[in-house]
C-alpha cells in the first residue's frame, strides 16, 4: 500500500511542556508550574519500535500529543525527515499525513453514530483520495489490519464490534493517510488480555514489513519488552533511563526502573526480591528540586536532593539519569546513542 518509498524519521529535541496552575482556588493563590514533560529528546526511525514506559502522570501522553502536534510544546524542536517543523505555527495537513496517533480507548475513539465506513472515508477524503477510490482504499486499510473480509466490517456500527476489532479499525484509520510515523498511546491497555498480543503483533508487523517508525506508549513494561527496539522509561516528565532492545529490562540501572520491574507480577520468578519499602518522610512522590525520584528512592544521597542528575552512559548505548552512576559513566547530554544494536524478534 505504501507507494512512497522514502522512509520517515521524526526527531524530538528537548521537548518541554509546562502548565501553570494556581495552587489554590481564587485569583490570588500562588502560581505553580506543573512540568508535564521536561526536556525529552528521542528519535523515531523507520523500521524501529520505540517504547516509552511510564505511569500515569509521567507525561507520556502529553509527549505523544506534542509529537502529533495537537499540543504545542512550551519549548523544544521537532525535526521531520531532518527538516525543522515550526512548532508554534498551525499544524499542516502535510504533517498530519506523515504522523498519526492512535488513542487508548477503542470504544470512545470511533464515533458511535457512524458506520466504520465513514470513519475510514474521512481521512481518505481529507488527504486527497478521489471519491471513486475511497471504497477500495478503505477496504485495503482494513485488510492491512487483518480485518478480513473488509466488506463484513465496513457497514457495521462500532457497538457491533469487539474491543480488539475496534482498535484495529482505529489503526486502519490512522493508516489511511499513509503515515510514515505511527504513534500509539497505550493501544492495548483497554483490551481484553487474550486479544492484546494480536494487536501488538500487528504493530510489530507494520514496523517490520512496511517500515513504519512506531512509538509505543505503555505502562506495562512486559509488553514494551515484547516489541521494542528501543526502550525509554519516563518518570515525572523526564526520561530517566533509555536503552536499545531489552537492555534496561534485563539490567535496570535506575532505581525507578528497578522498582517497576520488581513490582510487576512475574510468576516465573516467585523468589525474586520484592521492592524495598522506603520510609517516606512526606507524602510527596515527586520532588521539585534535585532528582525528582529522590523521595521514593532507596539509594538516595544528599547530592540527589539538591542537584538534578544528568544522563550518564552506562555502556552499550544504555543511559541512566542517576547520580549512582557518576563515577562509572560519562555524561551524555542531548542526543541518542548511534548504535543500532537491539534484539529482533525471532519466530519460534
Amino acid at each position, binding site marked *: 500500500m505504501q507507494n512512497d518509498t522514502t522512509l520517515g524519521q521524526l526527531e524530538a529535541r528537548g521537548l518541554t511542556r509546562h502548565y501553570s496552575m494556581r495552587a489554590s482556588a481564587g485569583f490570588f493563590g500562588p502560581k505553580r508550574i506543573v512540568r508535564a514533560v521536561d526536556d525529552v529528546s528521542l528519535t523515531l526511525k523507520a523500521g524501529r519500535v520505540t517504547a516509552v514506559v511510564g505511569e500515569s502522570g509521567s507525561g507520556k501522553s502529553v509527549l505523544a500529543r506534542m509529537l*502529533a502536534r495537537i499540543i504545542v510544546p512550551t519549548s523544544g524542536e521537532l525535526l521531520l525527515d531532518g527538516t525543522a517543523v515550526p512548532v508554534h505555527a498551525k499544524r499542516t495537513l502535510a504533517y498530519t499525513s506523515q504522523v498519526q496517533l492512535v488513542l487508548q480507548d477503542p470504544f*470512545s475513539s470511533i464515533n458511535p453514530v457512524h458506520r466504520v465506513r465513514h470513519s475510514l472515508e474521512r*481521512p481518505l477524503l481529507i488527504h486527497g483520495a478521489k471519491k471513486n477510490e475511497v471504497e477500495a482504499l478503505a477496504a485495503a486499510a482494513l485488510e492491512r489490519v487483518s480485518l478480513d473480509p473488509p466488506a463484513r466490517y465496513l457497514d457495521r456500527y462500532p457497538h457491533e464490534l469487539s474491543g480488539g476489532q475496534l482498535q484495529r479499525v482505529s489503526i486502519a484509520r490512522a493508516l489511511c493517510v499513509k503515515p510514515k510515523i505511527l504513534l500509539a498511546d497505550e493501544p492495548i491497555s483497554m483490551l481484553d488480555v487474550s486479544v492484546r498480543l494480536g494487536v501488538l503483533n500487528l504493530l510489530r508487523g507494520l514496523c517490520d514489513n512496511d517500515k513504519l517508525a512506531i512509538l509505543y506508549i505503555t505502562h506495562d513494561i512486559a509488553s514494551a519488552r515484547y516489541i521494542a527496539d528501543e526502550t525509554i522509561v519516563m518518570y515525572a516528565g523526564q526520561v530517566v533511563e533509555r536503552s536499545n532492545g531489552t537492555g534496561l529490562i534485563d539490567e535496570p540501572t535506575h532505581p525507578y526502573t528497578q522498582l517497576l520491574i520488581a513490582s510487576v507480577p512475574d510468576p516465573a520468578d516467585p523468589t525474586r526480591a520484592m521492592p524495598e519499602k522506603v520510609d517516606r518522610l512526606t507524602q510527596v512522590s515527586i520532588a521539585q528540586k534535585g532528582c525528582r525520584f529522590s523521595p521514593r528512592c532507596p539509594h538516595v544521597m544528599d547530592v540527589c536532593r539538591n542537584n538534578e542528575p544528568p544522563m550518564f552512559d552506562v555502556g552499550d548505548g544504555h543511559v541512566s539519569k542517576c547520580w549512582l552512576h557518576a563515577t562509572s559513566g560519562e555524561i551524555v547530554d542531548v542526543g541518542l546513542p548511534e548504535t543500532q544494536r537491539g534484539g529482533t524478534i525471532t519466530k519460534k
Partner: protein
Amino acid sequence: MSALKIPKSPKVLLGLIIVGFFLILTVIGPWIAPYNPSATTFAPNMTPSWAHWFGTTSLGQDIFSQLLVGARATMVVALLAGLVATALAMTIGIAAGYLGGPADEGLTMLSNVFLAIPGLPLLIVIDSYLPVADRSNEYVIGLVISLTGWAWGARVLRAQTLSLRNRDFVEASRIIGESRLRIMVTEVAPNLLPVLASSLLFTILYAIGAYVTLAYVGLTSTAVWNWGTMMFWAQSNNAPLAGQWYWYVPPGICIALVGTGLALLNFGIDEFINPRLRASGLTSRLRRRAGIPRRPRLGYTPVLRSARPSAVAKRLSTSSTK
C-alpha cells in the same frame, strides 16, 4: 441510524397517536370541516347537536369547523417556530460549546440575554410593532416566536457539546486533520440527536403556548382561525359567564392534548437515550410470572421463583453426563 422501531412502551405509543392525530388534522382539517368557520349563517348560541357538534358561537358560526380549521394554523405556527428556534439553538449552542474562548463567551452572553428577558412580554412588544399586514401572516408570527424560544435549547446543547468535545473520537477527528466546521456538523451534532429531539419537542410546546396567548390577547389577526382566536372570541363574548363551555373548552382541551402528546413522546426519547430503560421483551406479564417486583430495589437482587428452568438453561445443560 438504526431502523426506527415501533416503541412498545404504552406512554410513547399514546404520545405518538395523539400527536399523529393532530398532525393529520393539520393537513385535512380544513377539508373535512363541515362548514365555513367564518360563516355566520347559523342560529347563534346553539348548544351541541348533531348538526353542530360543538354548537355555535354568538355570531352563529359553527364551533366544530372553527376547531378543525384552526388546527392548521396553530400547528403550523408551532412547528415552524419550534424548528426555527431549534435550528438557532443548535447553531449557537454547538458553536459556543465547541469553539470555546471568546466565541463561546460572546454566544453565551447572547443566550443569557435572551433567557433573561421574559418571553411573552417581549413577544407582545415585538408583535405590537409589526405592521398589521404582517400580523396576519402566521409565518412571521412563527419567526417572532422562535426568536424568544431558542435560548434555553442553546444552553442545553452547549453543555452537551462541552462534554462531547472531550471525547476521544472528537480528538481522533482532529488528529486525522478534519476541519472544525465538519467536526461540529458531522461528528458532534449527530451525537446530540436525542437532546435535539427533546429540545425540539419542548420548543414546539412553548410555541403553541406563545401563539395561543398572542391570539388570546388579540395581537394576531382574527382573519386567520386558530384555537387561540376561538378563545379570544369566547372570552370577549362572555362565554364563560353564559355557560357556553362548548365554545372555549374544546380548543383548550385540544391544546392540552397536543402538549400531553409531546410530553409523552419525550419519555420515549428518554428511553431511547438510556438503554437501561429499554427493557426489550421484558413485559410485565412475564415479570410477574417470574416473581420479580416491578422495581427491584438496589441491594436486593430478585431470585426467580419459577420452577421450570428457562429455555437457556435447558440448552446449556444438554449432554454432559458426568
